[in-house]
């Protein structure tokens, strides 16, 4: 059993209000050593479970899905990888 992982993040230049909110909440909620964090970025992760090792077709389709369905290419980037 393997997983095709698609990780989607906002492009670095795009404002991430949720990440900002997390960054300012961390020290307030007692994670004081993280006060020094200059930024927090929040993204999303998809795990596509498949039987056996992914075939090249499956990887290509995952890539296509990442680009056209799972991410918004105008403001987000993605990476596709495999975890066993």
């Amino acid at each position, binding site marked *: 059993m393997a997983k095709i992982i698609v990780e989607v993040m906002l492009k670095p230049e*795009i*404002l991430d209000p949720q990440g900002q909110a997390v960054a300012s909440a961390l020290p307030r909620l007692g994670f004081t050593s993280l006060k020094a964090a200059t930024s927090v970025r929040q993204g999303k992760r998809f795990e596509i479970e498949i039987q056996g090792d992914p075939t090249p077709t499956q990887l290509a389709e995952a890539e296509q899905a990442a680009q056209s369905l799972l991410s918004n*290419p105008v*403001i987000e980037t993605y990476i596709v990888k495999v975890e066993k």
Partner: protein
Amino acid sequence: MSLDTVAIAEENPNSVQPFAELGLKEDEYARIKTILGRRPTSSELAMYSVMWSEHCSYKSSKVHLKQFGEKAVKSAALLVGIGENAGVVDIGQNYAVTFKIESHNHPSFIEPYQGAATGIGGIVRDILTMGARPIAVMDPLRFGLADAPDTRRLLPGIVAGIGGYGNCLGLPNIGGEIVFDESYAGNPLVNALCVGVMKHEDIKLATAHGAGNLVVLFGAKTGGDGIGGVSVLASETFNSAKPTKRPSVQVGDPFAEKVLIECCLEIFKADLVIGIQDLGGAGLSCATSELASAGSGGMDIQLEKVPLRDPTLSPEEILMSESQERMCAVVEPAKIKHFMAICKKWDVTATVIGEVTTGERLHITFNGQLIVDVPPRTVAHDGPVYNRPIMKPSYIDKLAESTFTVPLPTAADEVKAAVLKLIASPNIADKSWVTSQFDKYVQGNTVLAQPEDSGLVRIDEETHLGVAISTDANARWSYLNPYEGAKLALAESCRNIATSGAKPLAVTNCLNFGSPEDPEVMWQFAETVRGLADACLELGLPITGGNVSFYNQTGSVAILPTPVIGVLGVIQDVRERTPMGIPAADLDLYLIGKYNGNLSGSEWAYLHGEIGNSAPVANLEMEKRLVDFLLSGQSIFESAHDVSNGGLAATLVESVLKNKIGARIELNDVANALFSETPGRVLVAIAQNKTNDIAKLAVKYQIPIYKIGTTGGTNLEINQAVISIEELSKAHTETFPRLFG
């Protein structure tokens, strides 16, 4: 990259600069050189290019728009006119109202959710800047065909963006329009209107005077959002052959804006600012040059003090960034401590970035090096002005000479089928799928909202003073005759206000057109402005401001000329308003106003692929009497609903469906009576013992009235055609969920 300073610009006068890539024409670039007596630095070039873009400078529209000032009636109600962030109108009881409408068309095409969201954010800050508390928003929208794949991408995103941002701000969305037409494919129109209220003494202006006063930037940090967006997004046409431009999209943060609103209102209350300006299109370039040129003239800015989200930004990028949720204020040094304390309380970052000077120049330094040294007026106001060629499009005469036929139902079953077909069509169908995503009642002051004729909000909880807003455009009439189209849109908007029981008071507009470089589009624009200015004069209403959006076209195909006209009205007691829905059985239904059989531009013709040959001619003298008739008769009308898109058929169905109370109607010439969209008509319901009252009013205002039926039952019966309320409801409400659900 090395810093291009004024000194370097003087030493290297012949450096090649990418003015064309920034959207400047060769003669415009030459003019900048003449103004400065040298080549601009790259920062100056950035400022000029963005401020001289069509979007910021109105360079193609200015020569026409000045009619709004020249022809305008002197209105005692107008406290602040065109030129400020938004106009301000006196509504009595020491209340002033400000309202404005703007387009965010191109950004919404690129990234529907964020484009629409930041459109709301921008117009809300414009209203806030005047010193007002924003109280409601509205959004007129236009899309390509409802079943086109691109519309399925755009509409849900845009609707979610408007709802997402507006709902988070706690602002009720009280109306708008949704219209589909193939000409908007690839060019959706996302217009956003905001209305705000304040007391007379709270009005704020965008000005910077008093040497030594401090310039404060406050709100969100500056990032790489929409750099060059204002010129790239708003001034160039999308070309499907080239890869789509993907400029840095601005992302809105409504919670930051909410905090900024409350922070600003507290600052205003403590009377801490001399002048204030929001940062929208063109960001700091716009805010600094406009503040300086509206004041005594001089300003020094230290650009390195601007708090950055992205520390790698160059000074040019800082000047052009369109990061959202930022404001710029001019504050006396004695008040800065108090100002900063309020910002701190609201957790809003505030930084002094410069000061007002005695000079006449805007100086911007970066780490001590002078990078901008310009007369601010040349950036903000003295941009290029084009008197672009205009040419009457050949299609107009061709259409005028043409004849067209559309099938007209006669037998009862044909009439029934035709009505059901019309009310299920996307332009007429029930829009709750969209409006239910918006919070219509937050703040508890909404009295009327979509689908009523106008949105109505209570201003004062004790006196029940309220304001009504309506936005309207009939782009097909504007296509057939832009002069009449503009007049008709204003007339319809006024009629909608009066139908709800409010008195029209002031006008705003958002003029959406194709490329101004196309003489035929420019003719449509010139005729529209002429029509609107004439109509405002005739109706005695001031224009408080507006917005022009050009380049709404794909290839050589422009959108239909779409002047969206917003009218603000005042109602002394919101409890007296007239709703659109039939409230009870056994009332008499009257059609106010005469119709003719011209189906040009009507929804019925559009459903059969015809646009027709001629727009109606606006009769504003009659429209004025109609408004007076409606206001005088308010106490006897149980309900009133304007007859416009979809004709009497749509008006009847909407009036019946609102409270699920049927009606029985008798009409001669049934098809034309149902589907003609002749302007100047309203359907009203009155108690049967008020017959004499309405007849007297009709005589007094010389308005023709026709008793067409009575209310009651569970059907809409038109002559022999019987349609049950269930059938109507099903046809009317199923379209949107089917298309977008």
